[in-house]
């Protein structure tokens, strides 16, 4: 793979994945969902979740599942705002890149 995924883009992907579940989702599932887009190692995600939680973009709660407590992550109001910002930024960025790439095609 030639393109790098920066920390901000990873934050955005994680926020987007978590926001898809209205009732929140848990670590293992988040990892699997994020891996549909990028192949990150399993040990990378926890620090990202922890940071987003610290920045008040994610909130956590524990819920019983199969006789044990499972930690769920949910996007907060601030997280939604942040995600919308990322979405707008990504749209502008990817449009510009696509335009340049497409422009090259026209010249051929």
């Amino acid at each position, binding site marked *: 793979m030639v393109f790098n995924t920066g920390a901000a883009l990873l934050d955005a992907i994680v926020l987007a994945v978590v926001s898809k579940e209205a009732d929140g989702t848990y670590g293992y599932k988040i990892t699997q969902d994020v891996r549909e887009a990028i192949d990150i190692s399993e040990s990378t995600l*926890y620090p990202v979740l922890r*940071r987003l939680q610290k920045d008040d973009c994610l909130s956590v709660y524990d819920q019983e599942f199969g006789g044990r407590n499972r930690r769920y992550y949910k996007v907060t109001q601030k997280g939604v705002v942040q995600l919308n910002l990322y979405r707008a930024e990504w749209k502008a960025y990817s449009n510009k890149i696509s335009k340049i790439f497409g422009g090259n095609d026209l010249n051929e």
Partner: protein
Amino acid sequence: MNRYEFMRELEILLSDLSPQERADALSYYNDYFDDAGQSNEENVLKELKSPREVSDKIKDGLNEASKNQGSFTENGYTDSRYTHPDFMANTQNKTSNSPYPTPKKLSGWQIFFIILLALIAIPIFGPIAFGAISVIFGIVLTIICIVLTITILAFALLILGVVVFVVGIVTMFSVPFAGVLTSGVGIIVFALGILLGLFTIWIYAKAVPACIRGFVALCRLPFKNRRKMA
């Protein structure tokens, strides 16, 4: 290594974190193993590589300064520090307990030169420092004198007010008009004394403690920064 050995080792490696932070991280990976299921345990262990790698990433994540180190590629997270030969050697060496390289110790020669430099600097910076301290001392002394003057003035005005008032009352028996005037002036002077007295009380109650606090904060400033950097 199985799941339980992994978790035990991770717990030891995270022992320098706060109890809350450690418990959160451990419960996350415990959940992770539970949710991956027993059949996936082998895969998860292979993915996580080693407890040290996991604990290093947790600690890096807590350290805001390292936010911009490394990047995520489609092939996973790459951080030059982890692929560096030194780090790999460190990972294999299970006996070293600290995940971070110990701060560089200064060699004997370096310490010698630092002391030498300090000795050379004394004749240059000594007088400047002495001058600066003298100026500060002078300013502090001046402020103390001004405050004392105001205090004495307040007392003097109070006493003078009473004396002039009494003189005015006495004069009233011989020259009534002049007596009333004098006692009136006495009351005005007394009132000025009260005003100045209140100002003095304010200085002692509010301004002086504030100055002392400010001075203490100023002295602490260099140490505060050092603590933040550590």
